[in-house]
């Protein structure tokens, strides 16, 4: 029985080199790998894959690739799909790598059992299911890696989009871009308060030019940020309110309880006035040497 079930293993063992050559040819044809670097890479991977495939099938464990015998194979596939996801391969390219093994393997089976239709069908079925499982596992890892990449980018975006800028000694600006949800508000608040502590700023200008809409929730978040800054001894000025947003704020009956200015320039002028500074035009014509 064991010998019977292990046909695939003995075939792979016997025709190892031929299988590899045919498989690589299939991949080359299906994927049209452009440069020799990738070709060599794929050939190396294919050799390792076939090695693990042989070792895995030796156990005659065809139904469950989660079994311990397939552990090295799973690790190989995880590495492979992670690398490919990070290098920007398409899902198709990644899947073809595994699924293209079917063609040479089935050809091999046909050559061996061409006369025995029953045997051929059953062996083909076993091999097909096994490769399907391996392929699906690869895709699962591939998708998982892509999700990780997306999550990381989201996190980076979150950090990138909430800078605190020092406009002047004692004046901070917080240009908000994008929709304010509670998670972002938390980060905005923390970075603003931290900067207030380190810089000792007394005025913070919150600019909402880049906030597409202001609804009650966004307003709530703004109020929270303003209140927290006030508790740290910094007054806030709201700037960059577009005409539509001014209308929305009134229609919704929102009370922001904060000095607001239409533009950042107006807000900066007010902030400078409060800190006792003035901007004036130079009376003398500019000195070319100065």
């Amino acid at each position, binding site marked *: 029985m064991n010998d019977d079930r292990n046909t695939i293993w003995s075939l792979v063992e016997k025709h190892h080199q031929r299988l590899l050559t045919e498989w690589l040819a299939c991949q080359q044809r299906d994927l049209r790998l452009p440069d020799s670097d990738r070709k060599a890479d794929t050939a190396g991977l294919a050799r390792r894959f076939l090695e693990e495939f042989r070792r895995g099938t030796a156990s005659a464990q065809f139904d469950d690739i989660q079994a311990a015998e397939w552990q090295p194979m799973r690790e190989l596939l995880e590495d492979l799909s992670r690398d490919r996801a990070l290098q920007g391969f398409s899902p198709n390219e990644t899947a073809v790598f595994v699924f293209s093994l079917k063609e040479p393997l089935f050809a091999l089976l046909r050559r061996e059992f061409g006369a025995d239709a029953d045997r051929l069908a059953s062996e083909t079925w076993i091999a097909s299911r096994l490769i399907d499982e391996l392929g699906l596992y690869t895709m699962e890892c591939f998708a998982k890696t892509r999700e990780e990449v997306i999550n990381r980018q989201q996190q980076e975006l979150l950090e990138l989009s909430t800078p605190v800028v020092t406009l002047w000694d004692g004046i901070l600006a917080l240009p908000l871009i994008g929709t304010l949800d509670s998670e972002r508000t938390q980060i905005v*608040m923390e970075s603003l308060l931290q900067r207030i502590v380190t810089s000792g700023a007394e005025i913070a200008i919150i600019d909402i030019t880049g906030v597409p809409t202001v609804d009650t929730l966004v307003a709530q978040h703004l109020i929270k940020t303003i209140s927290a800054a*006030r*508790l*740290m*001894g910094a007054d806030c000025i709201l700037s960059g309110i577009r005409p539509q947003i001014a209308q929305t704020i009134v229609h919704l009956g929102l009370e922001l309880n904060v000095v607001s200015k239409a533009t950042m320039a107006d807000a900066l002028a007010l902030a400078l006035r409060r800190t006792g500074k003035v901007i004036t035009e130079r009376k003398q014509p500019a000195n070319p040497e100065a």
Partner: protein
Amino acid sequence: MGDIPILKIGDCLLVSIQVDMHDRLALALQDDLTERIVADHARGVMIDISALEIVDSFIGRMLNNIAAMSRVLDAITVVVGMRPAVAITLVELGLSLTGVRTALNVDKGLALIRRAIDSPERDDADRYG
């Protein structure tokens, strides 16, 4: 358990809260502080809470009360030294201490009181205008 010390700086009083507050201590502080404001003719009161890692609604209410009492006695109350984490917690609790002025540290608190004493009307108008 001793009382909370009240220090005099010019015509300001400085209260540094460094222990856990409870009812009796809060009442004692309010007693002491109001008496000292009258006795020293203080114009400003600074409450330093930089040592507090947790500020709950009880302390929030106490700060509001002290500010209201000082206002009646014509002294300005400034809460100084609040930590960022405390500020966020208070805001999340819905306690934004609207009746109290705030400053980052004692230095800035003193400057704020000085400014407010020198020109009370202008300061308010500038703040909200």
